């Protein structure tokens, strides 16, 4: 990898000579031509000083009000120099709550790039990094991809501090730990690792920390990048971390002993470890009465199975196992297929390709043209293809059901993985019929059984079996949800969280 420009310069210590420091900063920050770096020089009773900040990243008002004005107003009160002057500034003058002394030029530049202002004083071999971040950010809004009917509606945003605050507001516990990490060798990005001390397993926390620290990439622009770099199986089609944009879900996961990672600039929390079942759960399940939650989950599971297997089963049954179909339906299928010149596999692949195309176009198309896309999809690909005898009408039902099934999967990564696997199943069904589908299912089960998420078996607590709440497929009443998640520490202090709820109620009634 080529060396980063000015790498040697960044390793330099802050010098006592302000002019030298400013010259180094100008070189490192490419001034000129860089126009948004501001170097505001002033004098403190005859001693030269300078505030360095990035226009737009740091708040000009904050710098004017709480750094420059106090400095200039009280410039005549001291005769101190160098280090003593810096201490005096920190203790008596600057009206900023976040002040960090820095010794290396690299640290100073990093602070400036993250929106802090750096105060350098002639004669001091340290500088002060002052918390003045005030860049533009999106306000907390409604969730986009994890909407619920009942329950909180706010979602994470791109700002790391806001996201951590959203979680802290829900989990008001002193045991909630927020560890600050960095990823990206060349362009560092701030990462926050949150976990509940005494609830999350120490070895899991250590593993997550180790993996994040081991990332060798030059930069990490978002949570999706980080996820791919720290997962157990980077070649797998299934995600091994849960990406959620809901603070309440992240908070619930933390209380279950999982670890949450927030990457600055990403409106998602990454939750680890997870099992496949976590990825098929939605927040709705918990907020509703247990009967509704269970019903929705069953519907979702059926949707997932349809998404994965329906086209393959259609190919297998219509090609090799026609006697499975009732005679009247078989006749109807035969009639509709009579005019279609292609084998079923070609029909299915054609419709699947059309579906993927529509899906992708729907994601990229401007909102104003969305209705046009619907017309193209419904009329041209559906009606016209049937009239042209390219596909049979029943296939449209199969593909439509498959599409609905894949949209019912709450996790986008799992949904995409299933869409890709579906094609493999279709091909196996076309070659070997139900035999191929059975072989595929066996392999898939073995593969999922082999996978792990940060050391936790991916199919747990079902395979291998672990003690767990009745909250995997069916969700039983809250009073039956007293256990900790199998991923939590054995000495989890949040154990038996719902025990006593009924007892308390009885006491009230008495």
């Amino acid at each position, binding site marked *: 990898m080529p060396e980063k420009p000015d790498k040697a310069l960044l390793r330099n210590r802050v010098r006592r000579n302000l002019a030298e420091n400013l010259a180094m900063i100008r070189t490192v920050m490419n001034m000129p031509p860089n126009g948004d770096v501001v170097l505001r020089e002033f004098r403190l009773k005859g001693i030269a000083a300078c505030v360095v900040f990035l226009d737009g990243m740091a708040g000009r008002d904050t710098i004017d009000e709480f750094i420059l004005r106090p400095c200039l107003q009280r410039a005549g009160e001291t005769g101190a120099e160098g280090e003593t002057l810096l201490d005096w500034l920190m203790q008596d003058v600057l009206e900023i709550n976040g002040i960090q002394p820095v010794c290396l030029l690299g640290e100073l530049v990093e602070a400036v790039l993250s929106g802090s202002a750096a105060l350098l004083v002639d004669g001091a071999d340290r500088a002060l990094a002052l918390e003045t971040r005030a860049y533009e950010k999106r306000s907390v809004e409604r969730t986009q991809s994890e909407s619920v009917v009942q329950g909180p509606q706010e979602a994470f945003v791109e700002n790391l501090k806001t996201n951590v605050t959203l979680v802290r507001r829900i989990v008001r516990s002193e045991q909630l730990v927020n560890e600050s990490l960095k990823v990206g060798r060349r362009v560092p990005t701030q990462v926050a690792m949150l976990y509940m001390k005494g609830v999350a397993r120490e070895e899991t926390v250590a593993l997550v920390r180790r993996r994040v620290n081991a990332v060798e990439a030059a930069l990490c622009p978002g949570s999706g990048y980080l996820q791919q770099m720290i997962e157990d199986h980077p070649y797998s089609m299934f995600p091994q971390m849960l990406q959620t944009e809901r603070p309440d879900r992240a908070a619930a996961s933390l209380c279950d002993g999982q670890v949450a990672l927030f990457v600055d600039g990403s409106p998602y929390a990454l939750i680890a470890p997870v099992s496949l079942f976590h990825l098929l759960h939605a927040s709705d399940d918990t907020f509703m009465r247990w009967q509704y939650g269970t019903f929705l989950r069953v519907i979702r599971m059926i949707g997932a199975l349809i998404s994965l297997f329906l086209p393959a089963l259609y190919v297998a049954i219509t090609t090799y196992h026609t006697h499975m179909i009732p005679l009247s339906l078989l006749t109807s299928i035969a009639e509709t297929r009579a005019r279609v010149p292609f084998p079923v596999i070609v029909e299915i692949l054609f419709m699947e390709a059309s579906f993927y195309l529509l899906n992708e176009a729907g994601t990229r198309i401007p909102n104003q043209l969305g209705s046009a896309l619907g017309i193209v999809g419904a009329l041209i690909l559906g009606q016209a293809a049937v009239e042209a005898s390219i596909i049979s009408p029943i296939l449209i039902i199969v593909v439509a059901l498959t599409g609905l099934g894949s949209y019912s999967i709450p996790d986008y990564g799992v949904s995409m993985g299933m869409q890709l696997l579906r094609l493999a199943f279709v091909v196996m069904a076309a070659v070997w019929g*139900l035999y191929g589908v059975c072989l595929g299912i066996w392999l898939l089960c073995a593969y999922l*059984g082999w996978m792990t998420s940060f050391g936790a*078996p991916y199919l747990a607590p079902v395979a291998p079996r672990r003690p767990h709440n009745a909250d995997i497929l069916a969700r039983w009443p809250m009073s039956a949800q007293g256990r900790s998640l199998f991923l939590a520490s054995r000495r989890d202090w949040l154990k038996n969280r719902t025990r006593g709820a009924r007892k308390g109620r009885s006491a009230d009634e008495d």
Partner: protein
Amino acid sequence: MKTELSGQMRGVSLLGGSAIVLRVFSLVAIDAPEAWSASWLSVLLGGLLAAPALLPVLCGRGRAVPGARRMPAAWPGRAACALLGVMSLCDAAFSARLFAALVGYVALTDHSVTALAAPLLACALLACLMGVGALNASAVIWRRAALALAVLTALLQLREMEPGWIMPILGPGWPQIARGALRAAGLTAHMLLGMYLLAGDEPGRLAATLPKAIALCAGAVLLFGLLIPAMPDAPASRLFRIELLADSGRNGFATELIYVLMIFGGTLLVSFELMTAAAALHAVAPRLPAAACVAMCAAALAALAFSGQSGQAQALRATALFYPMSLAAAALASVQPKGEAA
């Protein structure tokens, strides 16, 4: 990919138990139907006969059987593993051929048995390379799906069942029942030893697995017996029996359900046998990497399954020897080598 040849007994017992049910069912329902309507009795007797073969292991004297967790230190253990490995490999080949024939009869009539067995073996190889844990997880899913499918199949065919077809209970005669029992015992015993080899710990769970597996298998065979009349003079060919099995319910959908159950179970069975053979090879030659053991056993299995030496006739001859061989393996396993602490 690190291939684990050992797992927890809880998972292995589920995998092995399912394999026992499938193998014994496929034997008495397809390959060796001599006991006809009393086949369920053969299965029960076979279970009883298999139990003594495991006594040395259950009594804690089976220290020479290395288990996958302990490497063998003495020759008796290695000899027992070698014997077990050969049995597993042969049985995997017989099973692969049998299930390929089933697929060929029910759906892919224009495919050769070799062409049908190849994907099954490839699938078993890939699953085994992922390790025992992966197989166990698959077995858990299979068990849940299989139970649901089996209940559905039985319900769909409830009206077709004729209790009169299993009467009189001892109709086929003791010699036939005993012959079936001997074969069932051989298969059961060698699979139980395989389970011990794959898990090594908690041998007590083997004792719990045996009655459950045998009861399930006997129940399935009994239900099957209620669906077809005894035909002692009918041809004993595998294809004829498959035809009976496939058409037993006279319900197209149920037929396919049985087929799906058997095929999905076939992959489980062949994978279990292949994994047992690989674990046995690893115990005999500990320096071989686990993945290499699996690959070598898969190659040997393919050679055996694709040759003409794994047909119905060979399977019947060989499975008759499984019981004494399993007893011998168990006896070797119980030998306490000199100098080794009890």
